[in-house]
């Protein structure tokens, strides 16, 4: 009968350095579980199973020369035809829409700095995560509030060149603001000559002096979007309970600033804006984020793609230390081979540049070798052996 210690010891001895950590952990867990619940192993059985795991692991290894890049590209590209276009879906909270499907994947590989639907999922620290009120407080700190947000209505008084903002007390309270704050903020705006607060009407009246109607309109627009509080770029923040913890979900993203808000658990705050993650947390985090985001889209569409393919894509994008785009201004544009670049896009541009720089194409890639009609250096083409031909005349030698 094999004891748990025996199983662990044997697995450690036999699997060590031969299989990945994940498999090692899984083996230990599964074997002990099995031993306890289903069938008691004999020691010989444990040996056999452990050796079998190593054997199977070796069988599943990639072969040298395997064109993993191509396979990744195909595995990610082929399901693209099956993806739905422009699906908006709900991320966690029903109120927030997120771009998914093919447009999102394209957004990710394009490394767009302003994704179409940036959202954040912000975890709260110990102090705040169990209390609804505290969570709302944090959300208010995060949510950007503009004049427009607290206004019931706005109006232009063309004759007196005045701009009227009819305030909504409820909304002001919701946003955690006080009247004085709003007026203080507005006073900082240079263009406003005088500010009056009409308590009966609960209205702020701003005189803008002697300006043209056109300018009046423009100013009123500017004042409408004047931020009163909160973080720039975050349009809405709401809370949602998951398990017994509260989370703040936002529409719009500003990773760097949110991390500094008191009450936010900066270790668990997340955004879907990959470029922000790169800027704040660095390239390793960006790589993980790329993998997660792509995986997320594929899962949502019910498409199965092995994680390794996505990893390779992410690694290729992060290879140089910053995030490179898949395309002309990124990986392909930086290729060493002139012919590879020329055959992708802006053909003549690359040829002219190559001539000016006196570039040399070493023909190490796939496209270049296809162009000149040589075997490609992948798979069976990796092998450089040339068989020596036996010269019939000098056979003896």
């Amino acid at each position, binding site marked *: 009968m094999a004891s748990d210690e025996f199983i662990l010891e044997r697995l450690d001895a036999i699997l060590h350095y031969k299989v990945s950590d994940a498999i090692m952990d899984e083996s230990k867990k599964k074997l002990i579980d099995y031993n306890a619940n289903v069938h008691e192993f004999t020691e010989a059985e444990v040996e056999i199973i452990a050796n079998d795991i190593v054997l199977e692991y070796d069988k599943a290894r990639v072969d040298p020369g395997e064109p993993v*890049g191509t396979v990744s590209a195909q595995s990610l590209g082929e399901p693209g035809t099956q993806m739905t276009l422009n699906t908006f879906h709900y991320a966690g909270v029903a109120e927030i829409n997120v771009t998914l499907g093919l447009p999102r994947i394209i957004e990710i590989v394009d490394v767009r700095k302003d994704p179409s639907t940036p959202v954040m999922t912000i975890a709260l620290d110990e102090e705040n995560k169990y209390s609804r009120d505290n969570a709302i407080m944090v959300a208010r700190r995060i949510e950007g509030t503009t004049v427009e947000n607290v206004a019931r209505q706005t109006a232009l008084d063309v004759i007196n060149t005045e701009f009227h903002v009819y305030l909504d007390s409820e909304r002001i309270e919701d946003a955690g603001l006080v009247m004085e704050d709003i007026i203080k903020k507005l006073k900082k705006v240079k263009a406003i000559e005088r500010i009056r607060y009409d308590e009966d009407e609960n209205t702020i009246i701003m005189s803008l002096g002697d300006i043209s109607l056109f300018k009046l309109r423009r100013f009123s627009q500017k004042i409408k979007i004047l931020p009163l509080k909160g973080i720039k770029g975050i349009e809405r923040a709401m809370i949602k309970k998951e398990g017994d913890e509260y989370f703040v979900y936002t529409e719009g993203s500003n990773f760097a600033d949110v991390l500094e808000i008191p009450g936010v658990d900066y270790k668990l705050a997340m955004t879907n804006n990959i470029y922000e993650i790169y800027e704040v947390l660095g390239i390793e985090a960006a790589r993980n984020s790329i993998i997660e985001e792509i995986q997320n889209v594929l899962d949502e569409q019910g498409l199965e793609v*092995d994680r390794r393919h996505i990893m390779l894509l992410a690694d290729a994008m992060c290879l140089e230390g910053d995030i490179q785009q898949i395309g002309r201004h990124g990986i392909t544009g930086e290729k060493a081979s002139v012919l590879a670049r020329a055959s*992708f896009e802006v053909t003549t541009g690359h040829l002219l540049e190559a001539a000016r720089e006196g570039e040399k194409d070493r023909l190490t890639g796939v496209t270049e070798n296809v162009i000149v009609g040589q075997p490609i250096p992948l798979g069976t083409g990796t092998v450089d052996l040339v068989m020596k031909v036996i010269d019939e005349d000098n056979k003896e030698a």
Partner: protein
Amino acid sequence: MNEEEILIFGPPKKIKEISFGVLSPDNIRKISVKNIVQADTYDDEGYPINGGLMDPKLGVIDPGLKCHTCNSKFGECQGHFGHIELARPVVHVGYAKEVYDILRSTCRECSRVLVPEERILYYEEKLKEDGVRTGMRQTIISELINESAKKKGVLKDNKCPHCGTEQIKIKFEKPTSYKEGDKKLTPADVRERMENISDRETALLGWNPNASRPEWAILTVLPVSPVTVRPSITLESGIRSEDDLTHKLVDIIRINQRLRENLDAGAPQLIVEDLWELLQYHVTTYFDNEVSGVPPARHRSGRVLKTLTQRLKGKEGRFRNNLSGKRVDFSARTVISPDPNISINEVGVPKFIAMELTIPERVTGKNIERLRKLVVSGSDTYPGANYIIRYDGMRKRVTDITRDILAEEIEVGYIVERHLLDGDIVLFNRQPSLHRLSIMAHEVRVMPYRTFRLNLCVCPPYNADFDGDEMNMHVPQTEEAQAEARILMRVQEQIISPRYGEPVIGGSQDYLSGAYLLTKKTTKFAREQVDQMLYVSSINTDLPEPIIIEDGVPYWTGKQLFSLLLPPDLNIAYKSKVCKKCDVCEGKKCRHDCYVLIENGKLISGVIDGSTFKARSTCKLLDKLVKDYDTDVGRKFLDSVTCLVLWSNGILGFSTGIDDEDIPKEGLDVINKVLNEGKEKVDKLIGSYNEGYLEPLPGRSVEETLESKIMQALAEARDKAGSIAERYLGMNRGAVVMAKTGAKGNMLDITQMSASLGQMSVRGNRLHRGYMKRSLSSFIQDDVNADARGFVSSSYKKGLNPKEFFFHAMGGREGLVDTAVRTAQSGYMQRRLMNALQDMSVSYNGTVCTNDGVVAQFIYGEDGIDPAKSTYGKAVDIDWIIHKNLYQNKEAE
């Protein structure tokens, strides 16, 4: 390359590198074989004019003539360059921007870069550092150019730091002229300035002195491309039609001549400048006819000329159409049709094609008799041969007249190009080739008629059907290629997809529903039927003991027959697809016979369906057969199971009809009630909205809230109606069998047929557009009721009323538009992905490297496992290993 060639020429040569550079005027003259002066091409007799654009020294384009330069025949001479001496220099459009950069960053007097010496040293250092990444280089260079540019605030006192000359701002007037202050700089002036820049400083400005000098961007001599590059075509009427490039060159020569004459005659400045500009225009459009700001040169008919840049650029350009992708010989294309009786490894090739495409086979002592026979039968009878090739490479066609002589002639060492035979390996492809499984190697099976035949199990990877699809076939010509195809690309090696580690080749449609019927508990077959079934599925084992004996007549169950396809040592248990997902699984005693248990290769319980061998899904059995046994075992299983099921289907019969969707009246009543309740709920919601009671959801307006609540209510109603319908839909209905076994469709489709279609949508919203504030003119404005916004309560079987039908069409159209847009978008994305990732491969040391040797991953996928060999993405299936070993032990005991 064959052995003899290697003996003669040595081992195959490899192109090591290609260098790029700009041609200097001297070089252009050096490679030129003729100074072209005549603007004409052919004289009245049709002979090329000496010194004209079709000069015989420039190469041959007519068969039968010989090149006056190299004396080779048509097809052998690749052509020779000529040149035109330009009367005045002109700017090369491609470098116009670079010339501007140089002009504005160098001194007008001393031609030195307008930064102090120490900055020059700094930039030199910096360029050396980052020499590898081209993008980086360009940024550094443009940094320098911006620092030295003649702009206010950049240059101190606006004076050259070297000679102190005051600088004047240079203006670039696109596309090809420059102004210094108000004075126009002629290309000649520009050239002069650039000649004086030292090599050291041109390098700083991005011109590698070993390959190019900036002044070469101002052309004084224009190379004339060989005639082979711009052949004239003779039309049927005998009229010659010249290539676009020739037309353009004619223009250039003509203007060049006029300019020269005017210069010689001492014409006024104005006229010279006009002609000079015209020459610039023609040279510009000769290089690129799509320069912005330049009207494109046109043919007399008004067609825009296709000049040098246009030839290279884009999808139809030289690069993508002729260099990255090439046309090939030994290929065939025809319509495909199904044949379940051939192996998945095979492809049925029409005899016509087999007689046209050949395989070169070298004559040896062992095959000489066989090949001789093939040559004797000639090229018109199958099997035969089309050509023989002598040692010296002489190729002889096998004809009716020559075939006997040639058959006598062949001896060891000859090559015979014989017709395709059964068992030859060929590549088979269907476009779009989105993944590597779109090209697989099949074994030839020569067949009558005119279509390619393929086994239905290989349809999924090709995404093929038989509604007129065509596919391509390629015949690998060398033994090396054939061996690679057979070992690496054969269909059976591709059963597991590299995308997710599950089978992409496997049963679909009738095979799944058929397998269900075959292995159902009630299915039994008499001896005669069993014999037939085993015969067609080429099962050659002893018949097991019959389980059922009725009135002395033995009967075999479908499970018994299916067991014959399994390896005798297979032990596996899993749930079948029809599993009802009971709360407590009863295991092999499952009431619905959904627990598949195979012990020692015998199917003990459970029905066989989608979860056993359906393509593109998690199929437990096929997966294990391929991974645990051998691809050969997997292939044989598929080959046999298709035949077996097909035959059993023939015996048992399987059908679906409109009565599959019948629901008894009381059922329909309940469904209608449910749907009406849903609509009433909507009415209530609208009522409370109108009265202002509706509470908005956080962050949403009242209208949005109403809309989402309505959608929720209607979706719920439809789901309820569907599940009510499902209660009446048992496994005795064909359609349900298809849906449940994974053969075709799903339960939603059936409930749509029998109960209700539900909400039609466009862009995820209910239908609302069309007329002003209403979807159809038969509703009042702002009606947000269920019916007015595209809720279809009818079923397909009942039929749709006109409004519903129209709404349905609206939803349907969105689907069509979506598909069209998506293909374009995802196609481009895949091209980009491909280009970005294609050079990455696993090295011998296990790292993943790019072709530049940059390590992308130290170990592939963090564990070095090939997804195609993994078990659902995991390196090893530990449960399976435990299971397997325990079973083996049990047996030993």
